[in-house]
């Protein structure tokens, strides 16, 4: 849109926030941080109105987008798309109606549909654990991996992870199965991995929720060959565990905090109120969390 990028100071800002519904720990965190941002920012800026909507699928999110534009008449949007490809057209339609668009986490397939892009680093989410494992185990280890739900997001992480490990011929990924970012499924898949593979060094659970199920399965099987379980996303319990050193299998994690939705809302709202523009792309780096730096990643009030 021609006007979409033009910045101007507004008297009032109607900001719409469209995010996935809380279906597992991570998205639960997203919802919590989004509401947190709403509460704080609306208090600080009386002329700011934030509407938070959660969707349980791409079509529903597209619908909400339409409703936010047509009926709530938002002028700015922060969207965490369910899926890049599927939401591109709908966001484009919104942008055509002069809505300022900040896309969070999953970039659209057509970048012209967005004014700003703020994201966690999915490649790093897969790369960091791989590099960590390769280094720690001197390029020699047996790994089993859990995957999330089949999505582009999951693919990115998986490719980054396997991509790094390809350079280490002695690191074997024994198998990777979907456990749907779900504790129960992770528990079952791990149980079966344990039955199947007698010698495992590391489990890449790829998500802290799933890591939780993995740990329980290992505990039940009383297996001693496994040296480490690596989750992902830096949930509060996992960070606390690292901080306390309370679980011998947990040593590190990779940060991918749902807090970025808070940052995105805050940055967008404040920029819009002042009439500023956001940088076109802003990647919130993912970093390795270890006992040393765990404190920086610990937010006791967040649900995640």
């Amino acid at each position, binding site marked *: 849109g021609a006007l979409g990028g033009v910045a101007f100071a507004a008297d009032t800002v109607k900001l719409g926030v469209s995010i996935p*519904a*809380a279906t597992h720990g991570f998205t639960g965190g997203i*919802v919590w941080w989004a*509401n947190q941002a709403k509460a704080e920012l609306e208090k600080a800026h009386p002329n700011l109105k934030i*509407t*938070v*909507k*959660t969707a349980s*699928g*791409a*079509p*529903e999110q*597209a*619908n*909400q987008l*339409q*409703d*936010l534009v*047509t*009926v*709530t*008449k938002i002028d700015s949007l922060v969207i965490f798309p*369910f*899926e*890049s*490809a*599927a*939401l*591109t*057209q*709908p966001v484009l*339609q919104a942008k055509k109606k002069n809505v300022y668009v900040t896309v969070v986490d999953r970039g659209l*397939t*057509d970048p012209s549909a967005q004014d700003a892009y703020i994201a966690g680093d999915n490649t790093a989410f897969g790369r960091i654990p791989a590099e960590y494992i390769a280094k720690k185990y001197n390029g020699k280890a047996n790994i089993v991996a859990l995957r999330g*739900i*089949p*999505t*582009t997001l*999951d*693919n990115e992480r*998986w490719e980054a992870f396997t991509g790094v490990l390809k350079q280490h011929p002695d690191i074997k990924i024994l198998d990777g199965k979907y456990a749907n970012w779900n504790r129960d499924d992770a528990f079952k898949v791990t149980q079966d991995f344990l039955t199947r593979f007698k010698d495992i060094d590391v489990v890449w659970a790829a998500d802290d929720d799933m890591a939780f199920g993995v740990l329980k399965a290992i505990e039940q099987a009383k297996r001693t060959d496994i040296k480490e379980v690596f989750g992902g996303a830096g949930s509060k319990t996992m960070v606390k565990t690292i901080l306390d050193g309370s679980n011998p299998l947990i040593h590190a994690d990779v940060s991918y905090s749902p807090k970025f939705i808070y940052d995105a809302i805050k940055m967008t709202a404040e920029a819009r109120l002042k009439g500023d523009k956001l940088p076109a792309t802003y990647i919130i780096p993912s970093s390795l969390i270890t006992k040393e730096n765990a404190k920086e990643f610990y937010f006791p009030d967040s649900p995640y």
Partner: protein
Amino acid sequence: MPSGPKSAPTPTTEARGDRAAPRKASRRFDPHRFGPVVGLVLLLVVGTALNPDFATWDNMMNVLTRTAFIGIISIGMCFVIISGGIDLSVGSMAALIAGGMILLMNALAGSVGSPVAVVALGMLFALLLGGGFGLAHGYLITRGRIEPFIVTLGTLGIFRAVLTWLADGGAITLDNDLSDAYGPVYYGSLLGIPVPVWVFLAVSVAGAVLLNRTAFGRYVQAIGSNEQVARFAAVDVDRVKLLTYGLLGVCVGIATVLYVPRLGSASPTTGLLWELEAIAAVIVGGTSFKGGEGRIAGTVIGAVLLSVISNILNLTSIISVYLNAAVQGCVIIAVAFLQRRRP
């Protein structure tokens, strides 16, 4: 007053000779028929009260447009349910059709010149694929004598798995040129009314005519009401059942044809839980889950009603986002209560 159980049928008060009259009258005011309408009207009132922008033309068109997919599938589903069957696979089927169709169109884009022709071929393919899947269901159910629930539960998994495999776990995305050529099918309008709404309308009318004014529709109802009786009346039960599933498949194809230009991609989460929504629309619309009787108009209203609920929820923030599904659940139960069946 020793009145019998509340569940007893409505008494007719006229003498025997005139029994026809009061029975007819009681049918006219059958809450069973008007429950969904009443529910919808109430919702519209609530929506307008909560947010004046709700009642705008644009919003109405938005709601109707997005209802089109589920609505069209529900119409096919209505036939299947009336005939005493069920189809759990429609969501996965839509996803697979969308994926297959996009792959085909992307592949053709190189060889066939005009994007419009490619899109037209893609659409045709979608309808054929849908019909084929539907007939396959029908075949397994009638010839294989397997419960429809099981057959379609199985294909629910199969369709989605094949799509996931085709998409390598990610998404299948339509080429940009094609997207532009195809866009109007979802985003265009005719006389101020979006194309999908026209299609939805056309399918509804066709469905209503088919159900109420053709022998096929009559047979569908007869089979759902009493399969043995239909067989005795020399109705080719297997063939009619086969066709209802085929019809539903075509409806899913049509819905997919409208859906693809909207999101321009298919992924393993496409069409997730559409089956529940479609079945819910049919049942909320007053069709009996046990088959035998049902209404297309009710189904359409049911589908619209379900969209309106989430539209209203989108338009207000009085309720915690966590509780959206609870509100939806309550409204569905309340609407069903309005049209509860006489025993």
